[in-house]
């Protein structure tokens, strides 16, 4: 690929426990913003003739968890899919506006979407293990990258499964089917699969919506742990979840334009504490206090 997307990421930085509303850390010291990973500006997405999402601008920062919330159909998944070019796979989808990844335009003609997806991993709403063994599921991304010696593969699989807090549960049955796991384990398997290729960013589309509260808690803990290493963008319908795990929250809503066409918009984007304690927009307040949809 022609454009070099490699940017040295400040892996050494330790993540502050929480980001407060004014961007200062817990001691009240002003803290510089972490580097920008995604800079989305004026994003429009059209499916066929339906302009589904309009005028979205937001920035995602390194090693933070950014949550996208909002009512069903407001375009959260659509925006998320723009970040790793999965919308290329949707027939009729067209993306305009700018999505910059560490300053490089993701949609520039010379950018290879395959390379983009290798570096920006994704976890889907429904656990979707491949019809293969647990081991092969995790090794899949590494195998498509190229040949590797078996010992290295073994190490990387163990590393990824450990990282996804699944190793202890599956270490004795790596050869068994990925479907032989519970729903929560399957979702952690999908997370392991995504982190095995050591991506820089992890996109998660409602990763807990098919899970019970205990499995959800496990995945949430995992997200907080992974945020030491990865930048995470998560779509969720669960407001407590957004409040618990995220550093920043973007609230989307669906509204009708002058011609009565329903489309999604970004209403408010801010530090999570601010969105949940003192939102600037009335619609955000109504939504998080449950007075909406």
């Amino acid at each position, binding site marked *: 690929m022609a454009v070099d997307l490699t940017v040295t990421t400040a892996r050494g930085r330790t993540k502050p426990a929480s980001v407060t509303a004014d961007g200062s850390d817990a001691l009240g010291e002003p803290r510089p913003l972490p580097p920008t990973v995604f800079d989305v500006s004026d994003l429009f997405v059209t499916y066929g003739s339906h302009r589904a999402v309009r005028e979205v601008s937001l920035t995602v920062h390194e090693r933070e968890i950014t949550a996208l919330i909002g009512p069903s159909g407001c375009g959260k998944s659509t925006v998320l899919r723009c970040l790793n070019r*999965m919308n290329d796979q949707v027939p009729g989808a067209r993306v305009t506006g700018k999505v910059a990844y560490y300053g490089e335009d993701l949609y520039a003609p010379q950018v290879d979407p395959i390379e983009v997806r*290798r570096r920006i991993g994704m976890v889907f709403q429904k656990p979707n293990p491949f019809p293969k063994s647990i081991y092969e599921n995790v090794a*899949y991304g590494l195998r498509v990258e190229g040949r590797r010696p078996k010992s290295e593969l073994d190490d990387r699989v163990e590393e990824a499964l450990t990282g996804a807090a699944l190793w202890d549960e599956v270490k004795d049955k790596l050869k068994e089917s990925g479907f032989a796991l519970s729903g929560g384990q399957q979702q952690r398997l999908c997370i392991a699969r*995504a982190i095995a290729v050591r991506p820089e960013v992890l996109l998660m589309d409602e990763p807990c919506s098919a899970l019970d509260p205990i499995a959800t808690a496990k995945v949430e803990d995992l997200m907080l742990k992974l945020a030491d290493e990865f930048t995470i963008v998560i779509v969720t319908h669960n407001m407590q979840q957004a409040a618990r795990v995220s550093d920043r929250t973007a609230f989307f809503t669906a509204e009708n334009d002058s011609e009565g066409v329903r489309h999604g918009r970004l209403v408010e984007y801010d530090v999570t504490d601010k969105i949940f304690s003192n939102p600037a927009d009335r619609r955000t307040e109504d939504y998080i206090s449950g007075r909406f949809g």
Partner: protein
Amino acid sequence: MTTGETQKIREDRPRERRTTERTRLAVAGARAAGQGLYTPRSAKHRVTNTLFSAVLFLGLGTALVALTAIIGWALVEGWPRLDANLFLAGPSTINPEEAGFRTAIIGTVYVIGGVIALIVPLGVGAAIYLEEFADRERWYNRFIELNIQNLAGVPSIVFGILGLAFIVRGLGNFGFVAAAGSMTLALLVLPTVILASREAIRAVPSSVRNGSLALGATLWQTVWRNVLPAAAPGILTGVILGVARAIGEAAPLLLVGAVTFVVYDPSFFEGGYSVLPVQIYNYAKRPQEEFHVMAIAGVLVMLVVLMLINSFAIWLRNRYEKKW
């Protein structure tokens, strides 16, 4: 529940116990719903159900009885000739007691082997192209799709003439050889294999494809490593059906050179060849009774060959079907 029935319920009740219209309706509705759930349907429904099952059972029964009858009859009639010579000896017009199907069996194996070698890559390749790579909006892709569906219904003799004109003579100019028979039969069964493979590929959930693409796999890697293994059982089913049809075909092969008498073992690219159904036909139309027995025994030979090929394919399918 119809108004008539509501009426009836109302009349069944003593006047004093009548409540408001709305409550009665609600009760009637609830009862009807409950009845629907917990008790068998009305007598009319029961009769229809029984009748329907009976018709289905009759259909199944007829098919089974006819099949067993034919095989049983062939066994009884062909019994005197069920010996090793039947498989090992070549054909003869003079000596029916010692004649066999050797050359026809070899011919069939050659022709069918060629058919499999052609339909698996071509059929699966076409199915992959149409399902994964083709842009449905393009007119030529829609044209191809439509034509494949139509081709599946074209009579086999048409393919025979096509084979004669373009494979034996014309463009291919292979002559009357087993390879020409393979190609002709492959054309005949390709539509079936393509349609079945497409169905199998389409049945692989898109979540699997998306999962693979999201990991940075190319479309080609996704198809090769994920979609094809998952679709393999369905594809093999299509191949089994195609091969089963090809084994039994005589008409198109008569046109592309399957001759009735081949005394020496045939080869793939030169010399005359014969196949089982043609050989059977030849024995059956002779006047002598002994040859009729040969023909019947030949049917059994063909069934055995068919079963061998199919069991191999089914074994292969079960290996892939290992439950994940």
